[in-house]
């Protein structure tokens, strides 16, 4: 096993914010396998015998049929993450099949202001009907948490310099919305008294 291939963020700040629950700091049980660290000749099973692994979707496409990966998936040890470049609608069949095997899906933000991941998340929830955990990884900052949590993310691996206390306070800043999103319908629908109070 080559431990340098596992990202060091495994020990860092994680927030979970499940539907219907408050946001809270959590222990991170998933190691993200970064794309650039994968040597084409190695298989995931060679160096990750005992960890829960979030692997790049691009790797999943190549090795998901291996017996080892299938077994580990069934044991709940495998999740995949999508990069901003992944056109997920091109891989509908693989994703529908993968949904049954993955324990978690993550979406990577190479830089916080690259908004493609927001639409990827919306599609994963809306189109593919993913009910499991959806995690934001990469350049995940305090001031994007609200939007992330609304489009479909329910866990957030914060960049390590982000203040956890400030981050946790974000989720209570807004109590109303004016458009539908994964987490809540617009206040008109969620709180129908809007019609009566005007």
């Amino acid at each position, binding site marked *: 096993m080559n431990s340098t291939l596992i990202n060091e963020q495994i020990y860092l700040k994680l927030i979970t914010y499940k539907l219907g629950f408050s946001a809270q700091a959590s222990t991170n049980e998933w190691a993200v396998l970064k794309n650039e660290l994968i040597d084409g000749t190695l298989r995931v099973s060679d160096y990750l015998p005992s960890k829960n692994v979030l692997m790049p979707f691009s790797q999943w496409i190549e090795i998901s049929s291996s017996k080892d990966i299938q077994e580990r998936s069934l044991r709940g040890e495998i999740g995949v993450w999508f990069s901003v470049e992944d*056109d997920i609608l091109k891989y509908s069949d693989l994703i529908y099949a993968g949904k049954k095997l993955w324990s978690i899906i993550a979406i990577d933000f190479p830089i*916080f*202001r*690259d*908004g*493609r991941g*927001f*639409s*990827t998340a*919306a*599609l994963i929830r*809306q*189109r593919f009907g993913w009910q499991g955990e959806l995690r934001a990884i990469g350049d995940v*900052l305090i*001031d*994007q948490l*609200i*939007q*992330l949590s*609304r*489009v479909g993310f329910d866990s957030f691996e914060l960049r390590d310099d982000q*203040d956890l206390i*400030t981050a946790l306070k974000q989720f209570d*800043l*807004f*109590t*109303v*919305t*004016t*458009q*539908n*999103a994964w987490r809540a*319908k*617009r*206040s*008109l*629908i969620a*709180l129908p008294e*809007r*019609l009566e*109070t*005007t």
Partner: protein
Amino acid sequence: MLIFFHNYAMYKYDQFDQTLINQRVVQFKGQVARRIDGSLPEDEFKPLRLQNGLYLQRHAYMLRIAIPYGMLNSKQLRTLANISTKYDRGYGHFTTRQNIQLNWVELQEVPTVLEELAKVEMHAIQTSGNCIRNITSDPFAGVSADEVVDTRPICELLRQWSTLHPEFAYLPRKFKVAINGALEDRTVLLCHDVGIELRKNDTDELVANIYVGGGMGRTPILGSLIKNDLPWKYLPSYLTAVLRVYNRFGRRDNIYKARIKILVKALGAKEYSSQVEDEWAHIKDGDDNFTRLEWDRVAKHFTRPLYKNLETQDSQELYKQFELQLQPNEVVGFKRWLERNTKNHQVPGYISVVLSLKPHGTAAPGDATANQMTAIADLADLYSFGELRVTHEQNILLADVEKSNLLNLWRSAKLHDLVLPNIGLLTDIIACPGGDFCSLANAKSLPIAKAIQETFNNLDYLHDLGGLSLNISGCINSCGHHHVGNIGILGVDKDGEEWYQITLGGEQGYHAAIGKVIGPSFKANQVHHVIKKIIDVFVANRGDGELFIDVYRRLGITPFKQAVYENDALKNEEEPQNEWAI
């Protein structure tokens, strides 16, 4: 001060709108505090402040406050006047996107300014940044004689839909929406990322035609029609599809190639619209769509004001009604003002009045002082049900004026320099703040506007020239809409010097056209001379009733080009560089 208790016929926040705006202020306050204490670095703060309308300009922070679809009430304008006095230098700049900008605010005071704005149902949300911007619309909505559909309920519904939309807060680039419901287009619809044209179909149902991929900037393109007759309630789901395709596939590698127009051009409008249709097919029947209840809740605010029954007054020619009351020295000015600064209304006995924010050379186009803002608020209260609208030409509209009040209104407005009869004329210049303020600009806009206004200061001559648009942008970002001016002026940088490129033949409206470059660019002190030469060609060649744009279309660019470049005299006309400085 006058106190009025108008029941404004415009949208009024309910508790949800107000809560959202208040909570947005709290959120931004926290972000500013973290910026000031250093825990939030500038490059991470930047997109946050931009999404709240706060730019860092050449000298100071600039706060762009939203005026959704251009509508304001007198109370809001008084608040803007007070804020500009208290936190700025006593004036504001109305923009081509129907917003208002304060040029000299301090970062630590911005949250307080936002708190004051929130008290009168105003904010600065999404007036900048790579998100869905404040929606622009027809300032004459609800009153113009050529109206097919009153756009305001849809504008408001889409304002709410787009406000803090979580999926589209980090688009590849800014995203501007215009909505028109009249026969004439007064929104520059075809130069927006999305243009929504509202119509009624055969069964009297409200439907939308959707144009996508228009824009100005360095790649001016007119929008393509990608959807006909979309029933109004589908707008949220359809726009989600439009934006989702753009958010996923718009270019992010080059800021100059990131607008939706580049994606639409690269894919072709047909392929782009088919991708949108594919996406929409999955979401069109979801509960994103507007409901009749929502329509009713919003639309009821846009009722007609309590117009009087004035049928009989309309039989008489307008000017005649005032002839006997006018002082001799008022006759010409008032007559010209009636001709240029008023517009027909749907309701007999009423008229719309445009107050000019384009004095000749004494203030920047679109600027209003705090005193003027207060005066305009008073005029709105006295003469127009307390409401006013901002036009994209950077003037102020009093939409519902009783014709019999025109003379009183004119006299009062005249005291505040608001009645120059130049609406739609050459000196009604659209201009961005340019290099005097903006850190993006290559060149100054305001001294150029000033020099042109002073050159054409003779009102007889100006009126004789007829309708003509002249637009100035200080850089290729085109905030001054130079591409669609009959005469367009663009500031360019040549080896660190400010030069100006001139285009001819641009037009807005449904006949929108992008102007053509006349030739090599000019120095600042040459521009007004060049404009004079261009106008001379027009005057020498015009037939009866022909406007500048008609002559241009008939003759093409060549005679103008010849006149401007016929000898090198222009190059020798060096003048002191600071002559036009303001």
